[in-house]
């Protein structure tokens, strides 16, 4: 297809979609309206199970099966990336030269590493109470570990980051979620049903039945998944085949 024809197809399709979207927007309930039947029921159900963050309750209790699906997509995406970015036979691994990092940046990174880790764990642990949870906190924890790449260099990061262990952790997080679901089934009710544990006291860390456990499983999976992803990308960009390219890769 020539470039000109493609632009015509794009214009026709784009205008058509634009017209449909505009027509649909006019028929949607107005922005800021007062009618949210599902939302109200979700809030009621969440309060009945003493989960103070309704969003966590929807994610890990009322729609826990849907979250299992999301988690599986994440798992599959990481698996696909690992397979795509493995070192092939015509590539070789080169130790990157140690980077020179200014002393203030190094100090900042080393001080921030525990602070960022703690922030991430706090976000995961308080998921069922205040804004946060396994998905967000997992990313923060994984990013925190990569402060070592910024503060020192790739070799320092590799020393504290056995990728194999994180791959196991990724799978263990996914498995823990499934096992908790099956436990609900064995416990006499449905898959992933939140009937196994006492609901606890409202607005405390142990409230919400299985919600904190599922939350922690997701946090572990997301953190390990992001570490594995970044490890593969850093391998490709920093280590593999470094010597064959020209040293100075300055952009235009």
């Amino acid at each position: 297809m020539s470039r000109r024809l493609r632009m015509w197809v794009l214009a026709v399709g784009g205008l058509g979609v634009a017209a449909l979207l505009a027509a649909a927007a006019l028929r949607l309930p107005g922005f800021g309206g007062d009618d949210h039947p599902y939302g109200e029921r979700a809030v009621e159900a969440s309060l009945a199970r003493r989960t103070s963050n309704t969003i966590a309750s929807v994610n890990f209790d009322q729609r826990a099966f849907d979250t299992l699906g999301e988690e599986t997509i994440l798992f599959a995406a990481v698996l696909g990336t690992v397979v795509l970015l493995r070192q092939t036979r015509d590539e070789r691994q080169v130790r990157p030269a140690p980077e020179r990092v200014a002393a203030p940046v190094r100090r900042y990174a080393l001080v921030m590493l525990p602070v960022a880790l703690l922030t991430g764990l706090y976000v995961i642990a308080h998921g069922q109470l205040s804004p946060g949870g396994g998905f967000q906190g997992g990313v923060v924890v994984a990013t925190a570990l990569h402060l070592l790449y910024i503060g020192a260099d790739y070799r320092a990061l590799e020393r504290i980051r056995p990728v194999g262990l994180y791959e196991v952790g990724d799978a263990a997080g996914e498995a823990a979620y499934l096992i908790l679901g099956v436990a609900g089934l064995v416990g006499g009710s449905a898959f992933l049903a939140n009937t196994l544990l006492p609901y606890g006291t409202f607005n405390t860390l142990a409230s919400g039945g299985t919600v904190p456990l599922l939350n922690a499983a997701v946090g572990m999976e997301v953190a390990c998944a992001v570490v594995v992803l970044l490890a593969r990308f850093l391998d490709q960009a920093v280590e593999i085949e470094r010597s064959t390219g020209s040293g100075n890769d300055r952009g235009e």
Partner: protein
Amino acid sequence: MNGWLWTATVLLAVGFGPVVWAVATGPVGRRVVAQNFGTSAVCLVMLLLAQGYQRPSYTDLALVLAVLGPVGTLVYARLLADDLSPHPPHTNLLTAAAALATTAVVVAVCAATGPGRAMVKLLVTGALLVAGNVIASRAVSGGYRNAEATSHG
């Protein structure tokens, strides 16, 4: 809509509006500076919004941004170093402005919350934001290049 929310609106328009324009045009150095300043501006907007909506739990957003925002800028400073080094951008004025604004906002919000755990969290957020912003700005503007040469011989 109360005074806190109006302040947040003005800060969003004056502080973050130009950032969107600056990050989309011009040399790479200016874009990285704009991104770094945008982090500070949005972090302050988050603090003001938390106060304006009377939801102390929203300050977690500012805390996470104060931790991760400078990390993002340092990533750019590391991976775009070759683009940045020929024409290092000037950041002193913007950094000073961001630090001043952070101090003002954090003091005002602290005065409104009163002593307690919430205030400690606000102070930590403010300190992390200022420290991160100063370090990231100097890394971007090449202020550490001399220090580097001396420390490594």
